[in-house]
C-alpha cells in the first residue's frame, strides 16, 4: 500500500500478510509509518494505492463501521472511550451493535439477559467489574486503556489492532493488560496485532515482529531473528539505513 500526505510518503509500498493466531508486533522509530499503517487497515484513511483483503474479502474502500462488522477491531493510542457514559454502557454499545440489537428502540437495554451476561463477562476479563457504574471519564488512565481494549473486544473481532496499548501505564497496569492480551491470544478466538514502542512488551508477547522504517518494511521475523538483525539495531541505536 501507499499513502502520502503532501510530500511525505507515510506508507511507501508496504506489502504485508498477517496470519491468524500469530500475535504480530509492528515496531519502528517515530515517523516510521506505524500509526498511518494501522489507520489504513482500520479505515480511518484510504490508501492512495494498494488493496486490503480481510479473510478473503477486499475491504480497501469499506467504511469503518463495516470493517468492524466483518471482524476487524481496533483500540487507539490516545484513549478513546465514551467519557460521560458508565463503564458498562461503554461496553454495551459495541455489544449491542455486534448482536444486531442496536436498532431496538422500544424496550430497555438491560431487559435482555444475554446482553447483561456478556457485558459482565467482558468487564470480568478486563478487571473492571467493580467500576461498572462509574462514568468512564473518572477512571484512572490504566483502567481507561483496559476499557479501550474491552470496547474493542466486545464486538468479538477476529483481528484486533492495538495502537500502543500500554502507553502511559504504570508497571502494575501494564502487567494486567499484557496478561489479558496473552490469555486471549492463547484462547485462539482473536488475533492480535500490536503497535508498540516498549520493547519488553514486544519481545515478551510477539510471535512475529515487523519492523517499519520510513514507510517501508525493513525486516520481519521471529523475536530472536529481529534481535539479531544488524539493520534493526542500527536504526534503533543510531545511523540511518541507506
Amino acid at each position, binding site marked *: 500500500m501507499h499513502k502520502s500526505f503532501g510530500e511525505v510518503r507515510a506508507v511507501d509500498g508496504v506489502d504485508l500478510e498477517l496470519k491468524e493466531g500469530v500475535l504480530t508486533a509492528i515496531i519502528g522509530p517515530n515517523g516510521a509509518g506505524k500509526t498511518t499503517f494501522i489507520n489504513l487497515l482500520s479505515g480511518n484513511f484510504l490508501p492512495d494505492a494498494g488493496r486490503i483483503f480481510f479473510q478473503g474479502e477486499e475491504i480497501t474502500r469499506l*467504511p469503518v463501521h463495516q470493517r468492524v462488522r466483518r471482524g476487524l477491531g481496533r483500540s487507539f493510542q490516545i484513549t*478513546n472511550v465514551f*467519557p460521560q457514559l458508565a463503564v458498562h454502557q461503554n461496553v454495551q454499545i*459495541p455489544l*449491542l*451493535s455486534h448482536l444486531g440489537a*442496536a436498532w431496538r*428502540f422500544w424496550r430497555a437495554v438491560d431487559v435482555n439477559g444475554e446482553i447483561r451476561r456478556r457485558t459482565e463477562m467482558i468487564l470480568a476479563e478486563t478487571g473492571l467489574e467493580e467500576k461498572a457504574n462509574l462514568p468512564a471519564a473518572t477512571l484512572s488512565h490504566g483502567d481507561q486503556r483496559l476499557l479501550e481494549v474491552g*470496547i474493542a473486544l466486545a464486538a468479538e473481532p477476529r483481528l484486533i489492532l492495538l495502537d500502543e496499548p500500554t502507553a502511559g501505564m504504570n508497571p502494575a497496569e501494564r502487567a494486567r493488560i499484557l496478561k489479558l492480551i496473552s490469555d486471549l491470544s492463547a484462547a485462539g478466538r482473536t488475533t492480535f496485532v500490536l503497535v508498540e514502542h516498549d520493547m519488553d512488551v514486544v519481545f515478551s508477547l510477539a510471535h512475529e515482529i515487523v519492523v517499519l522504517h520510513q514507510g517501508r518494511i525493513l525486516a520481519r521475523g521471529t523475536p530472536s531473528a529481529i534481535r539479531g538483525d544488524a539493520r534493526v539495531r542500527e536504526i534503533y541505536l543510531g545511523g540511518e539505513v541507506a
Partner: protein
Amino acid sequence: MRALRWTFCLAAAILLLCIPLTGERFYMYLAIQVLILALFAMGFNLLFGYTGLLSFGHAGFYAAGAYATGLLLMRTPLSLLPSILGGALVAGGLGVVIGFFCVRHTRIYFAMLTLAFGMMVYALAFDWKSVTGGDDGLIGIPRGSLWIPGMGAVKMNALWAYYYLVLAITAAGLGMIHRVVHSPFGLVLQGIRENENRAAFAGVPVRRYRLAAFALSSFISGLAGAMVAPLENTVAPTAAHWTKSAAPVLATLLGGIHTFAGPMVGAFLFYVIQEFIERMTEFWLLGFGLVLLVLVLGFRGGVVGYYEARIRPALCRRLG
C-alpha cells in the same frame, strides 16, 4: 431517591389534570402552550442532548406540522386526531429529506445547515401562496371533531376538551421519547454524542443513526406544531422563523440538556420568563438573548442540572 422523583411526577400530573377545573381560560390556554413547547423542546433535545446535534432550524418542522394539519383540517374530511398525526408525519418526512443533507457533516456545519434549511421552510411558507396562503397564512382552520369509537364525532370547540386532548397527546409523545432514550437505540445515540469515532469503531453506522434521530426529532416537533393549528385556528409563516427555533433551544437550556425532565421544566420556565419580560419591555428577543447568554456562560446544566448537582444531594441527606 426514587420516591422523590415519583412525588414530583405525581404532583405535576395532578396539577395538570386539574387546571381546567379552575374554569379560567387564561390558565388553560397557557397550560396548552407550555405542553406544546415541552413536547417541542423534548423533540429538539432528542437531537441535541442525546445525539449531540445542535439544530437551529427546528421551527421548520414545527411549522410544517402546523401547516399540514391546518390544510388537512381545512381541505379534507379527516377528523382531528388523524389530521394532527398527519401533520406530524409530514414534518417527519421533511426531517428525513433535510436530515439527509445535514447529518453527513460535522457539528458546526450541521448547525449552520439547519439554520439555513429552517429559513428555507420560512421562505417557502411565504412564497408558496397557493398552498400556504403566503403572508397571511392559513386562516379559519376548524378545530374539527374527535372521532371516538362508540361515541362518534365529538366537537372539540370547548377549550377544556382540547386541553385534555393536548395533554393526552403530549403524554403519549413523552412516553414514546422515554422508551426510545432508554432503549439500545437511545444508548447508541448517546455513544455517538460522546465519541462518534469510537461509535464507528463499535460497528455503528453513525450517519444512519443520526438520520433516524433527526427524523424522530422532527416528527415530535411537528407533532407539537400540529397541535397549534386547531388551537389558534390560524398558521402564519412566523411559525417557521428562526426566532421560533430559539424557543426549544432556550427551554432546553433553561431546564437542562442532560436530563430527561429538563426540557419540560424549561418549557414551563420559558413562559414564566416570557411573562416577566413582556411586562417590562416589548423587546423580548433582547430579553431571551440575555437569558441565553447567561445560561451559556454560567449555567450550562440548566435548572434541573443545578438541582441534580446541588439541591437533590442535600435533600436526600435531609430525608435520609
